[in-house]
């Protein structure tokens, strides 16, 4: 059975590209733009991994991750960061809160390596 990944990002292109890529890599992907929709989907169809942008339309990514952890305590959560956030800062400050972080500018192969490291192929 394919593993389920939830992508939460307010940018449609990111959702589409990442969803297409991870779908082609053997995962079942759900992609939503807001924290509210993410909560609703998690309740219906719990994922094995959550990838969330730091900045969402209706919420902060970290807040949403904290809320999701209440429902999915064992599910790894990954932050998808843009150039606004310094990677080093994220690594140093958020490592205890998230399982990992991915930069939107990173190649897809690297993103896939990171995901496989967390939940396997």
């Amino acid at each position, binding site marked *: 059975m394919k593993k389920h990944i939830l992508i939460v990002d307010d940018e449609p292109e990111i959702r589409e*590209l990442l969803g*297409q890529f991870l779908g*082609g890599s053997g995962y079942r992907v759900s992609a939503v733009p807001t924290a509210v929709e993410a909560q609703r989907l998690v309740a219906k169809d719990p994922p094995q991994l959550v990838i969330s942008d730091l900045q969402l339309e209706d919420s902060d990514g970290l807040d949403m991750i904290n809320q999701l952890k209440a429902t999915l305590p064992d599910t790894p959560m990954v932050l998808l960061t843009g*150039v*606004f956030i310094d990677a080093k800062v994220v690594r140093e400050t958020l490592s205890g809160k998230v399982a990992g972080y991915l930069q*939107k*500018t990173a*190649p897809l192969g690297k993103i896939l390596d990171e995901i496989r490291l967390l939940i396997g192929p």
Partner: protein
Amino acid sequence: MRVSFLDRLPVRLAGAILLLGFIAVPLVSELKRRAAERIVLQQAEVQSATATIAVVEGLQDVLRSVETTVRYLARDLEDRELSPAEVDRITRNVMAGTPNFCEFSISFEPRALGPDIERFGHYLYRNGSRLVERDLAAPGYRYWTRDWYNDTLGRGGLTWSEPFFDQGGANANVVRISAPFYRNVGGRRVVAGVVAAGLELGWVQQLTEENEFFDTGYVLVFSRDGRLIVHPNPKYVFTETMDSLAQKTSTPELAQIYQRVLAKRQGSISYLSNTFHARIHENYKPVEIGGWGVIVGYKESEFLRQVSAFRWITQVSLGATLVLLLAIVLLTTRFALRPLERLATVSQEIARGNLDCEIVPPRRNDEIGHLTRSFLLMQETLKKNRLLEAAVRERTAEVAAANTKLTSENLERRWANQALEHQLRYDQLIINSIADLVFVFTKAMNISRVNPAVVHLTGWELQELINSPLSRIVRLQEDPLGARSKIADPLAQALAEGRDLRDKPATIEDRNGRRIPVRFTMFPLRDRDKVVGGIAVIQEIPT
């Protein structure tokens, strides 16, 4: 795939024929048996009816001739003056002329022979080869007291007696026919006496035996009262009647026949006989003379035996036909199916993927030959198709791989573009979000980029600024002469040396030529430790 023995076509065909045979042979045999039985029994009945008629006709011929003789004699005696001697002569002549008479008598009414003779009755009977004479008027007999005499007179015509044993006379079973004769007295026809003739019944038995009936055939002759005159079992002759025998042998059919004959009816009947212990068929017919009846019967089994034999022959012939048909089918199917079996083997090989199996080119031009040629053609076509399919598969795999690679590359490219756009957008955002005036300039000190704050403060259009010398609108106040040609010098010098210039007083000229006092800071732009340009950040001095 190997075809099991029971699934082989010849075996199935043979099985079907055998099954058909097992159903059809008994069925046909039974139908033929029934039809044959019906025909045989119908023929037997016809023969039986014919035999019955023959016996009846034979009896009637004899009895009729006797009747004729007696009637003639009675008429001959009418109005004839006779003497006892003449009566004796006539009687002897009759006996001599009619050898089938065993007795003959002429008896007269009182004084009919002469006024002096009260009664006269002359009787002759055969005793071996000689004739014996008796006086019927003798005190020991007195013919006028006898039934046969009085009944004949009472009837006034020919009268047949019931058969009886003539004790003291012919000493045999006889039947008597008697007739009155008359005299003309005063113009009146008056009875004068009775002539009577007796017939020994041995001839009846002979007559029935002369007619050859079937092996099991038999004849019954019975009298008007039902007394048996002829019966295959001699112990019943004269001792039993039809009714008594019917009762004795629990054969009610005999009584039925008797009643029908009495009613002058003829016909036939089949029934299970307790006398013969078999199913018998009997034809019956009344004899027109004497009130007798005749039955001709036979055992149906005699004819059904023929049918049984016929049935056996039918079964054997059908069985033989079946075996022959089986042999023909087996040989034909073997001949016809051997090439098909080879083709079946070949088709199995082809189905397994072995397109190189050998198909022997046919020498025959029948349907199997055409089929074999079609197989050859199919084999060649399949070989071509296999090569074609392999090529298509290979090409498809290549295309699919290329497509996957292309899709992957396309996706990577789109992601990279997205990342680049993201980077640029946010870089732009950062610069554009700075409220101070930012100039990016080249190593030659020409403006390459400005933020919106520059356009906003100076009123210069972006097109007017890009690629213009920085010194065109920015002037450091350290330049005491204010000569524009020298403005850039400390700036160019700092840039050449890779030094920052921080918070220097300067002025910036707007599009209207108005000079605005500002604080000027410059940072060299380095790419791999090489100065490629600079960034100037200008802060407006609040007034």
